[in-house]
């Protein structure tokens, strides 16, 4: 009965962007798989909502804006050695090419690309990873497996982090640390419910999905759990599509 190669029993796992959507579902599901999670985000109220839903004890929550260097330093100082890191916080803004501007581009690259790079780099430098640790990046099908109108800034940020993930996988392999990404299609979270697309746009878009629906945050969390667990011990440098078949 207790056979479970996907177990995260006792694994200490830091999850960014845990106050909402995929990060929240990942934190909750990881706790159910036995992990000790450390959750972080900026919004205290929503982070508390996640914290209240965690199963088991020994979890930790840290309020931090990952784009603020002092916050990043404080985060690194307050964490123990990690068995897992989920670089998940991210933002999107849909703007056709001619409306690209420095402010939005820098903001997107900062959160989606630079902060996961710096968080990983700091953890390595401060020797925060245990042997056989697993790092997972929330990338996207967008920018890696497909592109869509108006999302060039987001797509370049995700393609960049996907490339970083592979470079890191190669470089950290000798420490026994694995790096992979999950690459979701459209997932029902606040990120895609910003109102840019009408109900009609949404219906038409869902038609493009062979499985005829958008994904749920848990469906990405389960992929992340696989990559964090020893079940994926021989998997590194993989970009795992979780997309209802949209890229087929």
């Amino acid at each position, binding site marked *: 009965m207790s056979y479970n190669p996907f177990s995260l029993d006792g694994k200490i796992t830091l999850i960014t962007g845990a106050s909402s959507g995929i990060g929240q579902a990942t934190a909750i599901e990881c706790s159910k798989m036995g992990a000790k999670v450390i959750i972080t985000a900026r919004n205290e109220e929503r982070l508390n909502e996640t914290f209240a839903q965690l199963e088991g004890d020994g979890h930790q929550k840290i309020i931090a804006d990952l784009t603020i260097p002092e916050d990043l330093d404080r985060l690194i100082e307050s964490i123990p050695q990690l068995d897992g890191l989920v670089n998940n916080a991210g933002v999107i803004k849909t703007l056709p090419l001619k*409306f690209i501007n420095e402010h939005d581009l820098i903001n997107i690259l900062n959160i989606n690309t630079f902060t996961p790079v710096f968080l990983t780099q700091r953890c390595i430098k401060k020797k925060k990873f245990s042997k056989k640790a697993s790092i997972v990046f929330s990338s996207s099908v967008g920018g890696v497996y497909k592109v869509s*109108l108006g999302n060039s800034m987001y797509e370049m940020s995700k393609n960049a982090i996907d490339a970083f993930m592979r470079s890191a996988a190669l470089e950290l392999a000798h420490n026994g640390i694995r790096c992979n990404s999950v690459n979701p299609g459209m997932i029902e979270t606040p990120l895609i419910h910003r109102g*840019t697309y009408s109900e009609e746009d949404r219906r038409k878009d869902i038609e493009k999905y062979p499985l005829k629906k958008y994904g749920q945050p848990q469906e990405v969390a389960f992929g992340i759990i696989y990559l964090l667990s020893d079940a994926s011990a021989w998997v590194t440098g993989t970009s795992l599509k979780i997309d209802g078949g949209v890229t087929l």
Partner: protein
Amino acid sequence: MELQEFIEKFAAQFDETDASAFTPETEFKALDEWSSLTALSIISMVDEEYEVLLKGNDIVNAETIDDLYQIVKSKR
């Protein structure tokens, strides 16, 4: 904000359609050149020029350029 100026900015999001095609009564979604990219451009233009965040549904609910102008005005 002024309707005439809004129409000019609206028209600037099109490349093929003649400027004379744009009046307050123009049913813009019926224009040949209208596409999902034009819709995104209109939303982005309104955000940049008027600091109003239009929703996809606002575009659906507006028939004419004036309809959309009224929506933008009401959100200012």
